[in-house]
């Protein structure tokens, strides 16, 4: 079972497909859950404390806005943990505010630079594309069998 980083990190389709074919999807819910279930100082809604932008310095320079560094403190460790990655290139809904948009760019840059198997796809817009979309995912995820922890 390989750990597969998914982008968009909240994607229902990718999360389901990775789990369906026997691997572990690495999405933002895992990192958020870890913070929600750890005792610390109260910092709603996501328990992002002032420590997080400091941890984000591992991934982005100090002059990068703290919003990006805070997000990277959540998502960066998942990229390091990943043994494969799937990116959907036309996920416009993941845009959000500028903090999210810039973090997304940095995430994709970091993933593409890691020496792990990667698959880039577009969302299907018809039944024909749906067949090709699932075929690509099946082929990629079955090629990962036997890899990972």
């Amino acid at each position, binding site marked *: 079972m390989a750990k597969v980083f998914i982008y968009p990190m909240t*994607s*229902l389709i990718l999360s389901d497909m990775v789990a369906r074919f026997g691997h572990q999807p690495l999405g933002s819910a*895992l990192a958020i*859950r870890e913070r929600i279930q750890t005792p610390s*100082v109260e910092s709603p809604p996501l328990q992002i404390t002032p420590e997080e932008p400091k941890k984000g310095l591992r991934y982005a320079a100090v002059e990068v806005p703290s919003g990006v560094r805070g997000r990277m403190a959540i998502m960066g460790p998942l990229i390091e943990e990943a043994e494969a990655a799937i990116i959907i*290139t036309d996920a416009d809904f993941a845009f959000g505010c500028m903090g999210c948009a810039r973090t997304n760019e940095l995430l994709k840059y970091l993933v593409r630079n890691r020496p792990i198997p990667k698959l880039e796809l577009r969302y299907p*817009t018809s*039944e024909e594309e749906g067949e090709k*979309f699932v075929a690509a995912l099946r082929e990629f995820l079955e090629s990962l069998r036997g890899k990972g922890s």
Partner: protein
Amino acid sequence: MKEYRPTHVGTVTKYVFVESPDVTPEELALKAYEISKGMMIKETCFGLQVTGKPDEVDEIIRRIREFDPSHIFVKDRGFPPGDPRRCRANLGGARPGFHGHEYELPLLRYVSHGLEVPIGKTPEPMRVERKNKLEFGVLKRMMESQEP
């Protein structure tokens, strides 16, 4: 600063989305209650939320998928159900995360169709070619050609 004491420690919560012509969220919830063994199950307009110990949730998800494998989709959730930081009853408006689901839910029927294609009859997999961006050298030459 106030101390934060988490609830539901050691549990996982998973969303179950059902987009099926044969199974409604209500029917799925009833079937899930039957096999839940005391786990927390919340029925929603799109399906269910299942909360419990990781092994137990995995097992119940495996059995829930069997009801309609190509039309039931599952993903992790960071918050437990009804958490006041996320629950729409406390916040008003769309729940955070709704817009992502709103975007992907209409596409599920294409994915379901893809899953129903027999393995021997699968088409050529989707390939996405990345567009090459304009190279710096080319841009420089273009700029220089325009200078008087």
